[in-house]
Every structure is written in C-alpha cells, then in structure tokens.
C-alpha cells in the first residue's frame, strides 16, 4: 500500500470550489440573486394586478373619510373621521384588551400555578383540572362560547340582572357607574405620584441602610400604606370631590354610566382564562426548578419561612419564569386579533377588516397592521434581552 504524499508543490492553489470561504461567498451571492429575482417577480405581478384593478398604491387613503361607526372608541371618533383615525382607534382597542388581559391572566395564572403546588390534594387537583381543560381547547372556540353561548343569551335591557342599584348586566353589555370628578380632584393624582416617588425613595434608602448596617424595615407594607393611604387621606380632607353617575333604564336601553360592550367582555374573559392556564404551568415549573437544597440551605441559616420564599426562592424562580411569561404576554396580544371573529373593534377587525374592504388598499393596510405587531414583538424581545443580561447567573 502506497501512501500518498501529503505535500503540495509550492505555488499550488486548490480550485475555488474546494475553498470554503469562496464557496460560502458564491452560495450567498446565489441566494441573494434568487431572493431578489423572487421579489422582482412578485412586485412585477402585483403592479400588473393593481393596475388591472385600477387601485393606486400609496398612503393617501389614510386622509379620506371613513364613513363607518365603531362600537367602542377610547378617543373621539365619528363616521366623519378619517381612515388614519380608525387605525388609531383600532390600535387603542387592541392595547386596551391586551393590557387588561395581561393583568387578569397574570393574576389568575399565578394563583392557579401556586395552587397547583399546594400540599392540599384537592386544591392541587382542581388547579390541574383548570389547566388541562382550558389549555387544550382552541381559543377561538372559547371566545365563541363566552360571546354566543353566554353573553348573547343574557336577558334584554328591561330584565337586566342587577347587582345592587349600580351595576347592570344584559345582552347589550355591562353597565357600571361612572365617577365624575369635581374641581379639587386634581390634587389626588398629584398626591398619588408623590406617594409613589416617596416609596421608591424609601426602598432605595432602606436598601442602602440594609447594606450598611444590616437592619431593614418592612418597606413593602410601608410603601403600600403610603401609596394608598396618602391619596385616601387627601380625598377625605378635600371632602370626597367625586359623584357617581348611575346607569338608568331609559326606554329600551340604559343611559349614563360606563358601558362595557359584550364583545370586549367575551374577548377579555377568553383571553385571560386561556392564557392563565399557560402562565400557571410556567409558574409551577419555575418554582419547581429551584432545587430543594436552596430552601434547606436558607433554613439552615435560620431565615424565617417568609424570608426564605421572598429572598431565596422567588428571586431565583423569577429568572426562570419571566422569559416564557413575556412570550405568553406577546401571544395574548397577538391572540387579541381574534376579536375580528366576534366583531370587537380591534386593529385587525377595524383596520385590516372594514378599512381594507372599503378601500381595497390590501398591501398598505396589511403592512401597517403587521408592522404594529412586529414593533410590539421587537420591543418585548428587546426587554427580554435586557432582562436576561441583567439576571443572568454570573458563571466562571
């Protein structure tokens, strides 16, 4: 058996397809060319199709009058407003249901997740049943259930269900009393802000003092008292400058007060209950991910049980919980686009639905809608990266 000499003559260059760097360059150039050709093909087709249908591209349509009404508007809107205004209305409605959904889902999810770990067998099983039921049923089906099977079968306005003389629930929605702020109320938000700043200062001071002397105050309870007690004190001192406008039955419908439309209620309930089942699982696995040795070590240092949870378990669990939690929040906001199936006026329903149908500006409208969701995703993943960098374990 002869051994091939592994020595190349001086000045010999391998052919370019054997050179990894050149091969990579050529491959990437081909990829760019293919993608560019694909884009040119699509753009060419689109232009031909658009001119055949007589649609002009551009964002000029945003200034035109929309001419349709919207059931829930957070800022002033009439059918004389522009399409640009419908975009803002839709965006605000999406953010409203998304924000309230995130809050409700977190509360339910944390409670169920902790209940899932309860030493009480019955409570743990009930929490497990909740998780397994709602996680495995499509969200759209849950939205339909709450909307068509529950809220749309409620009695009419004349036979509304009344809770006290202030809250009414009927097929047209939930009616709540509306607070009317009289002059002098402006002081309360100011006090509230001042109280928050004061509590932050207290927490910072307490942390410094703790590091310097080892002594600490119950800042959590103290700041709670400051944040809620101070505004309450001012409220009483100024003579409670609030009156409540009650919803009153006038003819066939209620007038006055705040109306929460059933579409919002259904979407909010379904989103919160569905997402909470995922959050509960995240919370459970986050707490279980902390080795028991951590708790035992803390107990060996004779930390009281309350402090073991607060100083040892929860900070470590949060590191595991927060990344999947934010992606669930993101899912919730994206899922709020299912609003269009029951007619809640969110971004997709108002803008990618009605506006798209009226103007035919498919490309601009879909691009704007997608851009909104992409920007939200981008912001959240930027937060995630920042958070991960902040809480990452410092390893050798």
């Amino acid at each position: 058996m002869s051994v091939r000499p592994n020595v190349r003559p001086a000045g010999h260059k391998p052919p370019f397809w054997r050179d990894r760097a050149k091969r990579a360059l050529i491959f990437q150039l081909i990829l760019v060319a293919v993608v560019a050709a694909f884009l040119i093909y699509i753009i060419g087709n689109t232009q031909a199709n658009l001119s055949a249908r007589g649609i002009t591209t551009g964002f000029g349509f945003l200034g035109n009058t929309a001419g349709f009404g919207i059931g829930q508007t957070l800022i002033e809107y009439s059918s004389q407003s522009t399409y640009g205004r419908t975009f803002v209305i839709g965006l605000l409605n999406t953010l409203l249901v998304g924000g309230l959904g995130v809050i409700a889902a977190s509360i339910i999810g944390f409670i169920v997740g902790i209940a899932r770990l309860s030493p009480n067998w019955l409570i743990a099983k009930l929490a497990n049943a909740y998780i397994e039921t709602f996680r495995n049923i499509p969200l759209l089906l849950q939205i339909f259930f709450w909307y068509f099977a529950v809220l749309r079968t409620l009695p009419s306005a004349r036979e509304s269900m009344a809770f006290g003389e202030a809250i009414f629930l009927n097929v047209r929605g939930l009616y709540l009393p509306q607070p009317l702020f009289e002059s002098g109320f402006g002081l309360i938000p100011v006090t509230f802000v001042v109280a928050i700043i004061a509590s932050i200062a207290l927490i910072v001071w307490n942390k410094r003092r703790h590091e310097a002397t080892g002594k600490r105050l119950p800042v959590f309870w103290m700041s709670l008292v400051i944040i809620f007690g101070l505004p309450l004190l001012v409220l009483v001192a100024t003579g409670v400058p609030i009156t409540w406008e009650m919803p009153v039955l006038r003819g066939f419908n209620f007038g006055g007060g705040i109306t929460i439309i059933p579409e919002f209620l259904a979407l909010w309930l379904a989103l919160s209950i569905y997402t909470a089942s995922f959050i509960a699982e995240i919370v459970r696995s986050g707490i279980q991910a902390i080795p028991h040795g951590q708790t035992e070590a803390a107990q060996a240092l004779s930390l009281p049980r309350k402090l073991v949870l607060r100083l040892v378990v929860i900070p470590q669990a949060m590191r595991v919980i927060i990344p999947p939690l934010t992606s669930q929040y993101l899912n919730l906001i994206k899922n709020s686009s299912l609003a269009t199936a029951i007619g809640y006026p969110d971004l997709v329903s108002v803008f990618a639905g009605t506006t798209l149908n009226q103007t035919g500006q498919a490309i601009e409208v879909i691009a704007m809608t997608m851009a909104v969701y992409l920007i939200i995703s981008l912001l959240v993943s930027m937060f995630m990266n920042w958070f991960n960098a902040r809480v990452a374990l410092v390893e050798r």
Partner: protein
Amino acid sequence: MIHNKETIPQQPAPKGTIGPIAWLRGNLFNGPINSIFTLLGLYVLYLLVVPTVQWAFIDADWIGDSREDCSRVGACWVFVNARFSQFMYGLYPSEEYWRANIVFAMFAGIIAWMVIPRLPFKRWMALFALLIFPVISYVLLHGGYFDLPRVSTHRWGGLMLTLLLATVGMVGALPIGIVLALGRRSNMPIVKTFCVIFIEFWRGVPLITILFMASVMLPLFLPSELSVDRLVRALIGLTLFQSAYMAEVIRGGLQAIPKGQDEAAAALGMTYWKRMGLIVMPQALKMMIPGIVNTFISLFKDTTLVMIIGLFDLLGIVQAALSDSRWLGFSIEGYVFAAFVFWIFCFSMSRYSQYLERKLNTGHKQ
C-alpha cells in the same frame, strides 16, 4: 451474651399514619387554613359538577331527529346527533363518505403504528406516510381519477378538514423549519440574516393577519391567470407560520448537542451535510420530539382560525350549524361537542409528549 435467633414479627404501622383517615388528615385537613381551603374546594366542585352532570347527562335528550324531541331542560344532544356527519365531513357528498373513511382509517393506522413502540419497520412506515399516503389521500378525497367523481375542495370540511390542515401544515413546515434552523446557526452572514428575518417576521405577527395576507395578497402576488384554491392559500399561510415556530424548536434541539460532536465528526473528515445528517440531526431530533409535538398541538388549535377566511373546519361547521333556523338556541351543545373533540385530541397529544420526554431522557441534557 444473648443472641436472639428469632425474627421479631412485623408490627403494624402506628395508628393514624396509614389508611384513608390518615390520608385525609395528611392531604386535606392538616391545619385550619388547609381545612378551610378543602371545604371551599369541595363547595366549588359541588357548584360546578352537580349542575353540569344534571344538564349534560341526567336531564339530557339523546334520541330523536328534530328539535321537538328536546325537552329543553337539559342538553339537547339530538342536535349534535343530527349534524354529526356534517361535523365530521363538512359538505362532502354523503355517498362518498367511504373515501374519507378510508383516509381516516389509514391515518389512524399510521399514527398507531408510529406510536406503539413494539411494532417494527418504523422507518418504512414513516416513508410511506410521508411519500405515498399523501398521494393516496389526495386521489381519494379529491377524486377525478379512476372513475372517482370529483369533490372540489370547498365541500371539504369538519373534523376532516381540521386534521388535513394540521397534518399538511406540520409536514410541510418540518423541512422548511430544518433548513431555517440550520441557516440561523450558519456562519455565513447573509444566510443567517435572511433566516433570522424570516423566522422573526412570521413569529411576530398574529396568524390571522397571515391568513388575511394569504387570502387577500397572494392573488396579487401571482400572475392574474393563475388562481389558487382557497384551501391551498390557507395551507400556504399555515405552513409558513408553522415553519418559523418549527425552526425555533429545531434550533433549540441543535443547541443542546455538545459542540464536541460536530467537531469530532469534522475531525473524521465529514462534510457539512454528512455531519448534520448523520451525527448532529439524529441526536437533536430525539430531543426535539416533545417540542415538535407541542407546536403541533398549538397548530391543531390554531387551525380553527381558517373559518375567518371562509373555510369550514370543525368549529366553522359547528358555527354554521348554529345559525340554522331549525336548530336555533343550541349553541352551548354545539360548542361543548366541538370543545370535547378538540380536547380529546390535544390532551392525548400532550400526554404522549410528556411520555416521550420521560422515555427519551437518556441523560444527554446538560
């Protein structure tokens, strides 16, 4: 010295540490707070279970063929019964149901074969499922060949359509996902950028806007003489959406393989594709299976969204049946039935994924 040669007879456990009473005391009534929670839990259970059982079973009506057979006290399962074949096959012509049934049976057979660990020839079965089964299903369901009458896709619906959308979306997304995941881990900057943008774009937008895009914008992108079937448009949207999620699952699996594996293979002189195909992927795929099943579950639930662009999947056909004037007012029954079907599928899949996770945990995880 005293040696006791006799074994001391076993003593029973101390009183109050075994048996149902001790279990109750240990798990339900240890301490006053826990007891209150237990009683509260029992009350909630009573409030939920008793009316539900009363409604769904005791007061329910099962037999009949019109709404007059329902007493309206409990659930009216007559409605579901009367519409059952529609819920399963959509508007598929009833004399052609046997074709869908054959496809259902083959599908169930393939799944059972792949899932039961003892059965042999898994690799051949997988090849059959991926290459031959789709052709057979298409020929059978769509017809137009071998004297089978054509059934156009707008008559497909019900559970059949749901399963079809989920499976095709999944099978189509797997290869795209693998390519994207490898691309995202590539050293070539342009390839990497393309893959990152592609993945993050589809992951960042809601599925419903993708379906809108597929149904509204796809016809604009293609030459006007080329018209794409509505079902195919939905499938394209679902596949692209799913491929981005799949890519992230696969990337996670690839990251879990120690770098030494790849380097050892390179040291043996293997090319990139050999290293990936023979060394890295087989190990990574094993770890990815639970993640893949989980994304499949979410895809399965997400297929319900196609009803918004006018396809009648299981939820779509139930929703359509609810607005039938002969059967108004049975929405709860319809939704409960649909929820039950979806729940069975999703729950068994998630249990299977948990089982796999335990079985495949061979200590590779770091």
